[in-house]
């Protein structure tokens, strides 16, 4: 779009000033304006939303980021930050009149300190690269989102990413110590510290998961953990998803916190099995993968206990991976569930609600009923240990109206998650995708408070505007209005 029509100057005077300023601050290779160069940045992993930015900048130093932010602040130009672009909620969707600030060139691991169990890295370092670098000390960085080979630690902080091991090891927020952040005004803040807490408010928690709305993360200090001596996985098959759900509660009631506890339903099992040949039982209605880690003796003890609980819970088959290769194979099936489903359907839409685990049977029953009503198949993949549900709705975008029906189905699932005491997003973030569902999750008071928090950092509203927190007007005007406990969510607003 921009710059494609070379004959006439496509830029406004402000945009001219911005581009001139950026070219003065950065090497020419760090400022992209041609449409073909902008194209790779038009979307993140939620590719239904696409837009070309006005300009992409690729700074390499904190001083450059500060200078870019000062310039944008002075010219009142919005800024969207981007890591590897693996986000699933459109959080890094560019703005047509804004700067897309890529942290891709911040790729250095600055410091690994095994004595204090921490590592300081630049935000563009890949999640897995931290664990690889720490491995020589027998340590690793715990959060492991499924995109960990590609996603960056800066993006992980912005989204508060999780992974299959969150039940035992927590999310990003539990595994970082300190951030360096550049504000919209270009000021460099150090948030948190290398010690276990810091004076003042817990801004570290506030920044984590703030989706690029409060500041640009330019350095991250993470906590490292000792790599467990052994990890082992047990696979259990069930002839009924409800029984599998109850088995999850029974494992926890037995006092065991597995490192990972994953569930897949029939359609997901079959798709994964066709794709990854993970030796899953194809006739099962549900399988559970239960990973236990710790010392050798401890893992052996827990495996015995878990096998017992699973059998008692009515599992039709319980298998312990015989060796590391089989453990990896069991996980390969689970980790390839999304691409596997992608093979059996032209398109799929991944939902990300979290529910209290006890609500699982009810929620699965309702999803299955809607699936029939909408004529859209659903494969369920579930981080069962922490209640994070990923229903994948299968559809064909080329069939008229299917995308719209899919989105409506998805909205109803998220609304159901809220109604049973859960949330609209467990780990993918709100971004663009779930901005309307925020009106279901929160009332006006909370949304107004969120806007006030943002204004404390970014009074002009230039950082990633229009994402993560909807305006009260948007909520009022939206069809997303619903009656909760007999009350309209935003009673003080006029309805049009």
């Amino acid at each position, binding site marked *: 779009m921009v710059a494609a029509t070379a004959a006439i100057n496509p830029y406004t005077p402000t945009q001219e000033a911005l581009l001139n300023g950026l070219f003065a601050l950065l090497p020419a290779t760090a400022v992209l304006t041609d449409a073909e160069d902008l194209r790779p940045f038009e979307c993140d992993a939620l590719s239904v939303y696409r837009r070309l930015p006005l300009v992409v900048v690729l700074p390499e130093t904190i001083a450059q980021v500060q200078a870019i932010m000062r310039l944008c602040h002075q010219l009142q130009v919005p800024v969207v930050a981007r890591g590897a672009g693996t986000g699933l909620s459109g959080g890094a969707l560019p703005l047509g009149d804004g700067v897309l600030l890529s942290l891709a060139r911040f790729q250095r691991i600055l410091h690994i300190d095994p*004595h*204090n*169990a921490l590592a300081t890295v630049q935000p563009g370092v890949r999640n897995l690269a931290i664990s690889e670098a720490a491995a020589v*000390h027998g*340590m690793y960085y715990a959060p492991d989102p499924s995109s960990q080979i590609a996603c960056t630690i800066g993006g992980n902080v912005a989204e*508060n990413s*999780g992974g299959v091991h*969150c*039940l035992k090891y927590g999310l990003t927020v*539990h595994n970082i110590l300190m951030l360096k952040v550049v504000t919209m005004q270009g*000021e*460099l803040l150090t948030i948190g510290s*290398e*010690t*276990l*807490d810091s*004076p*003042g*408010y*817990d*801004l570290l*928690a*506030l920044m984590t*998961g703030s989706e690029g709305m*409060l500041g640009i993360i330019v350095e991250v200090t993470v906590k490292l953990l*000792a790599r*467990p*001596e052994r990890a082992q996985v047990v696979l259990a098959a069930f002839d009924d998803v409800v029984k599998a759900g109850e088995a999850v*509660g029974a494992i*926890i009631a037995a006092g065991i*916190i597995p490192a990972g506890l994953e569930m897949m339903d029939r359609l997901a099992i079959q798709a994964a099995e066709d794709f990854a040949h993970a030796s899953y039982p194809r006739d099962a209605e549900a399988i559970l993968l239960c990973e236990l880690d*710790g*010392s*050798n003796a*401890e893992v*052996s*003890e827990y495996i015995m206990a878990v096998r017992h609980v699973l059998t008692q819970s009515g599992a039709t088959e319980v298998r312990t991976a015989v060796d590391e290769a089989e453990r990896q194979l069991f996980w390969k099936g689970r980790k390839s569930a999304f691409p596997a489903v992608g093979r059996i359907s032209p398109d799929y839409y991944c939902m990300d609600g*979290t529910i*209290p*685990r*006890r609500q699982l049977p009810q929620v699965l029953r309702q999803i299955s009923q809607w699936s029939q009503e909408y004529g859209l198949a659903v494969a369920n993949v579930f981080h069962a240990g922490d*209640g*994070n549900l990923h229903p994948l709705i299968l559809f064909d975008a080329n069939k008229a109206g299917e995308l719209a029906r899919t989105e409506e189905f998805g909205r109803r699932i998220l609304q159901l998650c809220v109604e049973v005491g*859960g*949330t609209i*997003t*467990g*780990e993918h*973030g709100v971004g663009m995708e*779930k901005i309307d569902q*925020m009106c279901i999750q*929160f009332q006006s*008071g909370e949304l107004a408070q*969120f806007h*006030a*928090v943002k*204004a*404390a950092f970014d009074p002009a509203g230039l950082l990633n505007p229009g994402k*993560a*927190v909807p305006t009260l007007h948007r909520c009022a005007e939206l069809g997303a209005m619903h009656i909760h406990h007999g009350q309209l969510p935003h009673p003080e607003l006029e309805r049009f």
Partner: protein
Amino acid sequence: MADMSAALQQQVHDAIYTRMPLNIRGGGSKDFLGRTSADKVLSLAAHRGIVDYDPRELVLSARAGTPLAEIEEALTAANQMLTFEPPHFGAQATLGGTIACGLSGPRRPYAGAARDAVLGCKLLNGHGELLSFGGQVMKNVAGYDVSRLMVGAYGTLGVLLEVSLKVLPRPAAILTLLHECPQSEAIRRMSQLLSQPVPVDAACYHAGHCHIRLAGSEQAVQHAHEQLGGEALEKCAPFWHSLREQQLPFFSGSKPLYRVMVKPATPPLPLNGAWLLDWGGAQRWLVSDEPLDRIRAQVSAVGGHVSQYRNTAHDAEVFEPLNAALFNIHQRLKNSFDPHGIFNRGRIYPAL
């Protein structure tokens, strides 16, 4: 066991109307923490009761005025526990006060702090609005993490009404190992544990002995004991309890007590006084007559920070002062929650 939300909300509205600031108080056991307040007390003591607890969900929700002891009793009955082993500092300790002060005990470096356990909260902000953030589920990234922002904010941002916490099963076995050694060796020993796959859940250095607490399955604990060696301390619970509650003789004097936070492997600091190292060396207690400025200078030189804890005047800078840029953000955040400045004025910093 009553829901006093409406009455509390009315008192906040009155305070806004009359511009009479409030001093939020649960059981009063943490009055000594932070800077002192002479403002009118808003008591949360009657707003109590466990609202929801399903052991299989690993989540407990309770009103802020619920005594910590009552919560721990309910958890113990289900063979579960609070992950962060909070100090009570008195029988009247409430959940709200513990969370507002962000207090964690010996298990903190290995199982997370109070803020790590918080999943959601209900609060009254400075407009008198009853707001709900986070939830009762482990994973939730909808909206800013306001619930965790409340932890350690000492009530300056709002009145906590209800808190939801992640809880965990109690370990099947606990064993404490003792090693007699000088402080520098204890620091090295505790630091080395961080990169070893051993089930340590507390480590401190006190009275010439390194105390390492193991927790986990019977076999895990036994295996780690063989690996680490050391003399097993019989009936270790009273020791860790006294440490957590600051009831060891170390804490009983009348000299100033400072909380010194450093990286755990930091070598012994050149400050005169008596030291007790908790949190594997990351939280160090110092009883000393050294001037505060000198203590702050030594500690900030190694990237740490200091707060005054006991036996000092609590009307100056109790906590480490913030730089101007950070303080500015603090003031704007405070203003965004409490625009009339009615909650716990000056409890953390004089101008906040």
